[in-house]
Structures are given as structure tokens and as C-alpha cells.
């Protein structure tokens, strides 16, 4: 390996990265520092004790974390399952078939990359009310059940698969649906995994739409819960508890990222626009 990055560039990048890490460092230190440590040390990044799990216990008991996790997992999982169906079928049509209006339809599909749900909250809310989906988990999921990014990705993935596989299946009398489910999808695992990573990350972190689409606490997802929780704890200046709560919300994806870093990075650079 040749080293042609100047040392000074690496040093500057390291310093900047250190700066980038400070909010996480504070979150980690403050979340395990016991409340008795005194207000003066609140901002200190130096890991000085006494340490304990008190803040996590407080956060867990004052927020509804089990419910929020459950709702978030249900929303992300529900969206992903429906998306996999819609995206595979449409991706197949665009990858393997020719039909009148194909290019226009594809362009119309891609339009969704820019007309993202947050911008359409006002009309989408009245649609939800009309469909009796307001303040329900399916209501949060509904606008995301079709995914232009997913269609694009699956189209590209299907095209990398040689046709020989399908032709063999056709000779055996398989229908198109059987071909998609039994032949193409098993061969598209990398594409599906990339799509799943981007989809789950996006919806795990989504805030504005779930906030507006629900009103009762029982339908809150993690992000909405964290916002209400933070507002409450902020009033009491319980910063250690806020740090612990934030950690609980962010930890699953951070852990997944550190574990499957290469997968994440390639999925995200593939995604471009979500």
C-alpha cells in the first residue's frame, strides 16, 4: 500500500473526526454517570464516576420504551414486508417486460424520490382521515408502501440475473409469479438486503410524519416518544436521563452499522436518493 496522503491531512482529519465524535462521547459518559456526580461535571467529557445504570433505569421507567420499540419494529417491519411485494413485482415488470407507456410510467414512479411524504403532510393527513387510518400504525406505514428507490434497485438487480434460470423454469411450466418468488428473489438477496437496510434505517429515524399521523400515546414510535420524553426530562434538567434515552433510541442502528459496516456503506452509496 502506497502512502500518498500527506501526514498533515491525516492529522487534520483525525482532529475533525474527534470533534465529530464528541456528541457520542458525551452521550456515553453522561448516560452512565450517576446523578450524584454534581452539576459542574455534567458537561465534562472525562469519564469520571460514580458510574451506574441509574439513568437507564430512570429513562426506561419514565418513558414507554417497550411500547415504542414494539411500535417502531412493527412500523419498520410492516413497511418492509409490503414494500418487498410491491417493489419486486414492479421491478420485475420494468426489468423483464416491454409494454406501452413503460418509460412514462417509470418516470412517474421516480417522481416519488422527490415528492417525499414530509412535504405532502397536509393532503396526506386528510387522506388518512378519509380512509379511517388516522392515528393507527398502518396509517404511518401507508405512504411508504410503494418505493421508487426499491423499484429502481430491484429492476437493476433482476437485470444482473441471467435469463437462463427463468427459461428453465418456464420450460417446467412455472408462472411469472412463481418465477419471481422461486427463481429471481432467492438470487436477488444482495439487492434485497441493501434495500432492507436503507428502508429500515429511514423509517426507524423518521419523525415528522409519525408525529402528525398519530395522536394517542399508544401509537407513538421511538422518535416521537423520545421527543416527548426529552421535553419532559429537559424541564427537570435530567440530562443524564436524556442521554440514556437517546442512547436507547439510537443504539440498535449504531450497533448494526458497526457490525455490518461494509454492507451498510455499500447500501447507502447505492441508494443515492432514498
Amino acid at each position, binding site marked *: 500500500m502506497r502512502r500518498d*496522503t500527506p501526514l498533515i*491531512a491525516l492529522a487534520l*482529519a483525525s482532529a*475533525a*473526526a474527534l470533534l*465529530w465524535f464528541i456528541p457520542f462521547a*458525551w452521550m456515553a459518559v*453522561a448516560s452512565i454517570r450517576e446523578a450524584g456526580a454534581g452539576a459542574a461535571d*455534567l*458537561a465534562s467529557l472525562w469519564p469520571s464516576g460514580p458510574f451506574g445504570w441509574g439513568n437507564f433505569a430512570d429513562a426506561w421507567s419514565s418513558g414507554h420504551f417497550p411500547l415504542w420499540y414494539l411500535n417502531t419494529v412493527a412500523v419498520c417491519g410492516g413497511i418492509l414486508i409490503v414494500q418487498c411485494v*410491491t*417493489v419486486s413485482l*414492479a421491478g*420485475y*415488470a420494468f426489468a423483464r*417486460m*416491454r*409494454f406501452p407507456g*413503460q418509460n412514462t*410510467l417509470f418516470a*412517474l*414512479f*421516480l*417522481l416519488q424520490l*422527490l*415528492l417525499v411524504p*414530509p*412535504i*405532502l*403532510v*397536509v*393532503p*396526506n393527513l386528510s*387522506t388518512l382521515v378519509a380512509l379511517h387510518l388516522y392515528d393507527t400504525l398502518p396509517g404511518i406505514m401507508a*405512504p411508504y408502501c*410503494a418505493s421508487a428507490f426499491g423499484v429502481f434497485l430491484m429492476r*437493476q438487480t433482476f*437485470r*444482473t440475473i441471467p*435469463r437462463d434460470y*427463468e427459461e428453465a423454469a418456464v420450460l417446467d411450466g412455472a408462472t411469472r409469479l412463481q418465477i419471481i418468488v422461486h427463481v429471481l428473489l432467492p438470487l436477488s438477496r444482495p439487492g434485497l438486503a441493501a434495500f432492507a437496510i436503507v428502508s429500515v*434505517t429511514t423509517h426507524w*429515524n423518521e*419523525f*415528522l410524519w409519525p408525529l*402528525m399521523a398519530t395522536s394517542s400515546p399508544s401509537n407513538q414510535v421511538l*422518535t416521537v416518544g*423520545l*421527543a416527548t420524553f*426529552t421535553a419532559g426530562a*429537559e424541564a427537570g434538567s435530567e440530562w443524564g436521563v436524556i*442521554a440514556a434515552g*437517546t442512547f436507547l*433510541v439510537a443504539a440498535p*442502528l449504531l450497533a448494526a452499522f458497526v457490525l455490518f459496516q461494509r454492507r*451498510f*456503506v455499500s447500501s447507502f*452509496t*447505492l441508494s443515492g*436518493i432514498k
Partner: protein
Amino acid sequence: MVALTRLVARPLIVPAIRKRRPALAVLTPYLLLAPSALFLLTFTYWPVIQVIRSSLTVRGFRGAAHWGLENYSRLFGDAHFTTAVVNTLIYAAGTIVPSLVLALLFALALTETTRLTGTLRTVVALPMLIPLVAAASLFAFIFLPNAGLLDHYLAVFGVAETNWLGDPSLALGSIIAITVWKNCGYYMLFFLAGLAAIPRDLLDAAKIDGAGPVQRFFRITLPLLGPTLVFVLVIATLNAMTQIDHVIVLTQGGPSDATSMILFYIYQQAQQNFDIGRASAATVVSVGVLFALSMVSLRSLERGIHYET
């Protein structure tokens, strides 16, 4: 990206099945598109039509309604909206320029793959994984006057207590800082991918010809990164227009509208003032901007794809 885009050019072959069952085969592609189309119609296309309609509907006394442009005149006559537009422009410029420049610098410094650069890349990319509201919760403490992290460490340098989010002249800048911190790593990933696609021999040849690092950057690297740059620019613009979670959590558009942006204005009109007419008119304005952006971006995307193949 390169591997995928190369396949776009592959010619389409009509499958053999089509010949066997002609009557059904004509409908099959549309049936396959139907599930996606159903959701897109309900939550992407129909809302656009609906919001245009309700922006042009003027409600009078006793529920009587007529067509008109009054929502728009009320919108553009509203000083809060004008402020929101100006703030959105400042916010867009203030987040896009620094985060793109920083992302590019990070990518350039971390191009080589070593254990150190790998770790540094991870650290810079981490913020993109957490929700914007979680970032807001962390920065609520960082920006806390006096006891907060920033003031605590700035006090060492003799900087006096600062109300980062409460001072109208600083609040938007503080919100911008959160966004730059959060998105920079995401953009860096694209630049890293773009840099990796630049042929090594090109840079080596220039080096042998005596081109310095600055010259090589401006003459070779930057022009070849063009498509990536445009691409990231589009994503960053879209983010600037659609991500206001931290504003909702931290400042509620305040103090005195200093951090109010178009989407926050829409949210406020709909959620707090129940002024659907004005919220719709504001939505139409942002949809218009996004349409314009989509025209530019689709074209630049195409160009990028041609370039890479």
C-alpha cells in the same frame, strides 16, 4: 454504482412467455405494477392534485366555498412566510456548502484504506445513523447556556455564556451546525465512492508530468467527480427542504421566527392554526420547487450514468 449503471444499457429481450398467452400477457405488466401504483396514486399523485385544489379553494362564511387565489395572496402577504422562505434559503446555503466541502475534504484525506482511515470514516459516518430528533436531544445539552457542553469548554477560552438556541442572531446558525454534523458523513460516502472510481493511472501520469497536488485536484479529481457532486447537491437540497425535525424539537421556529422554515410554516399552519388553505398554498410552492429540482436532477442523473458507462 458503476456495475449497476452499466447494465442499464443492456437491450431488453421480450420473454418467450408472452407469445404463448397473448391475451393475458398484454395485461400482465400492468397487473404487476398495480400494487405500487395504487399506493403511489393514493399518497403521491392524488395529494398533489388535492393540495392544488384546496389551495385554490376559498372558504367564506357558513362553509360557502369558491375558487380564487386568496390563499396565495394571504400566503405571500404573511410576513411569517416571507421570513420562512428567507430562512430556508439561508439554511439551504448554510448547510449545503459547508457539509459538501467538509465531506469532500474528509473523503480526500481518507481515500486510502488503512485501519486508521477505516475508523475515522466510521466515526464521521455515525451521525447519519441516528434519528434527527436524537441528534436534537444531544445538541439540546451541547447548546445549553452556561452548564452545557459548548459553554463549559468555551469558558476555558474566556468566552462568556451564550444562548445558542435562544438568541435570534445565533439560533439558525446552531440549527445549521446540527445538520452539517449529521449529514456530512453521508455525503462523504458518495465522495469516497466517486474517488474510488477515478482511474489511478490518470493521477499517476499527471504526477509524472510534474503536476502538484493542487493542480491534480482541480484538473483531474474535481472534474471527474462532477456527476457525484451534482448528485450529492440534489440530495442535500432535498434534505434542506424536508428535514426540520430538530427545529420542531428544539426551537419551534423561534425565537421570533429566526428558525422557521417553509416546511415548519406548513406544519404550523396545519397543526396549530388549522389554516388548511394557507398550508396548502405553501405546500404547492414547495412542491413546485421540488418539481423544478426533479427536472434538473433527473437530467443530471442521466448525465452521470452516461458518464460512468
